[in-house]
């Protein structure tokens, strides 16, 4: 069992967890992830390690989108997670490249953050572009500011920072004409694809962290295979970071849709159970009060 030492909401449907997992905390490098299973009967899901500390805790940031992540987000400080395994995947390639642009979209910012920290530490000039739909959904603004030489906030509705997409800001940065050694983009697949298309004409090396469906996360099943440069690669052991200009994003999108129906059904069942549990609690309280 892996105890949750801190659970704290960051934005609507987004929660930060610090989990005691000393073996993982000791070894993890930027870009790596864990696979966790909340409890018996649960599924295994991959989540990126956003941070770690000397007390043996790792930080993960979870957006509630389906049954497992919504279930996870009901957990509080003091609860436990049954299985946490890692660190998995290859670490980000960190070196002194020069100017590095780090782009985080939505909860992808949590994945970009540890690499931004490592890039800054390695002596790079870090320009960060963080995007979200609106102000309420923005996460890690202070943390990203602290590790960036320049931080640009973009919101779709202009409720914070500048109005527009991260790709528009990226274009502006490219248009300044100063050399960019590398771009790292992490977020929704359409965003990563759009970034790849912006940098391709300028031949700027661009890295994306892919998020295919995974089961074991150790290279045993190939469920997470992605097409990179026309070749099948396993994101869990060969990635999750790949050269954006080589990735077939369409295949990734299609494969991620595979279990749509089961996912919808599972979430519906979970929400019904939550509802009934809540009803029972309130009826108990009614009984107590009468």
């Amino acid at each position, binding site marked *: 069992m892996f105890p949750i030492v801190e659970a704290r909401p960051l934005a609507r449907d987004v929660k930060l967890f610090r989990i005691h997992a000393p*073996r*993982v905390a000791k*070894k993890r490098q930027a870009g790596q992830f864990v696979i966790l*299973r909340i409890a018996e*009967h*649960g*599924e*295994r899901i991959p989540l990126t390690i956003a941070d770690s500390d000397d007390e043996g805790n790792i930080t993960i940031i979870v957006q509630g989108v389906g*049954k*497992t992540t919504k279930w996870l987000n009901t957990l509080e400080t003091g609860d436990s997670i*049954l*299985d*946490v*395994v*890692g*660190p*998995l995947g290859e670490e980000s390639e960190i070196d002194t490249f020069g100017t590095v642009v780090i782009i985080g979209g939505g909860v992808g910012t949590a994945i970009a953050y540890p690499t931004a920290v490592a890039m800054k530490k390695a002596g790079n000039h870090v320009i960060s572009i963080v995007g979200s739909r609106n102000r309420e959904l923005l996460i890690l603004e202070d943390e990203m500011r602290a590790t960036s030489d320049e931080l640009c906030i973009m919101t779709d509705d202009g409720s914070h920072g500048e109005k527009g997409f991260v790709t528009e800001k990226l274009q502006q940065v490219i248009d300044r004409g100063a050399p960019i050694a590398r771009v790292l983009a992490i977020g929704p697949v359409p965003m990563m694809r759009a970034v790849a298309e912006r940098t391709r004409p300028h031949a700027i090396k661009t890295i994306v962290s892919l998020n295919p469906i995974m*089961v*074991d996360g*150790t*290279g*045993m*099943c*190939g*469920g997470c*295979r992605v*097409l990179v440069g026309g070749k*099948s690669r396993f994101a869990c*052991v060969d990635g999750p970071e790949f050269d954006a200009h080589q990735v077939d994003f*369409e*295949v990734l999108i*299609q*494969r991620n*849709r*595979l*279990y749509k*129906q*089961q*996912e919808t059904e*599972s979430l519906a069942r979970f929400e019904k159970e939550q509802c009934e549990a809540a009803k029972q609690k309130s009826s108990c309280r009614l009984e107590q009060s009468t």
Partner: protein
Amino acid sequence: MAKPLPPKERMKIPRQAMPEQEAAVRARNFGEVNLGLEVVAAETEAQRCLSCADPKCVGGCPVGVKIKDFVELVLAGDYLKAAAKIREDNVLPAVTGRVCPQENQCEGACIMGKRFSSLAIGNLERFVADYERQSGQIGLPERAPSTGKKVAIVGSGPAGLSCAGDLALQGHQVTVFEALHEIGGVLLYGIPEFRLPKDIVRGEIENMKKMGIDFQTNVVVGKSMTIDELFDEEAFDAVFIATGAGLPQFLDIPGEHFGGVYSANEFLTRVNLMKAYDSEHYDQPVYDCRDRNVAVVGGGNTAMDSVRSAMRLGAKNAYIIYRRSEEEMPARKEEVHHAKDEGVEFMNLHNPIEFIGDERGVLTGVKLIKMELGEPDDSGRRRPKPIEGSEFEMPLDVAIIAVGTGANPLVQSTTPDMATNKWGYIVADEKSLRTNKRGVFAGGDIVSGAATVILAMGAGRTAARSINDFLRTGEW
């Protein structure tokens, strides 16, 4: 207690048949197919043993179970002692009694098989192990006094478990590290419930915990820590690497990325380990096979397990697509028969050359080519050759690739001073299972390539013997 009969009488008794669930019923449930011998049948079967002065069966068993002795105890009606006798050499009797290819091993060596049918050793082993479990009185062998030595075992499949059992008996402190969340390796994620109920595997693991073995799940050696760190930071005196051959091989043909195309490892892991067949209660999904066309590519036991699982998930048609003929199939004959009885269609001498999908990226069909057999190749099997112009398409919703596995490189890639061969398998001395790295031993599929449960257990025993020698003498 049954009376011993004169040999001539014993030979007249027919081999006792294993009762099984009816094919039409079992093809749609995950309950165990073989139901196990009743007491009377077990007693009768035990009577057939000729009690050879020089029993050949023992030599046919990769872990050297004292077969004659345990069968005599069955004959004497002392089933618990019989089980305890097996446990002296075999930590997983309820498992091996079910999944060993006995026809190639103990039963293949049985003298009775020459003229009649061989003694049903596997069924008897299973009988006493099940009897023992149901009685709740497990006859665990005595442990030697503690040696104060620590051994790390990497991987909790059959090789790791049998090595752990032997070393624990010799008084060493044993820790087993497993990357997945449950102990058992292929026994858990690979072999389906209908051939090997998972509660039986869990029961055997509990027995091993009682023997003082420490099991640590969720540890990926090679990622969570390296082999060197096991020695330097965790103070282990020896390491046994038994990580198996868990890297799935694909066909490398167009369209393999379409939704609905699985490796057998992924399909079986979802179905067995994550219990996707019980979608009411378990969260991990599997592609909906109900009323679909499902094909498994390959002819080994993994292919049979996959296709029979697909049948049980409700497939309308379940096919085996195999590039050679049935004669060359590496799967156990029993499994092939079971599959056929359950309605699986065999398309032998066929090979996929392309998967076809729709605009959503979902599999809709497969292009096959017919094959014929040519001259024998290095493996002695006749080489399949495509028949030009024989291509045709068939509709398909799910394809499961079961054409073999390779060596997972995680441990090797972080242990650069340990020798591997050109396929990535670990190089270990055949007799001692020592690698070129001091204190590190390796065995099972990660050395031999994909083989059987019992061969891996045999390797585990060999490793335990040589680890014990190393720990006692310090000589390398």
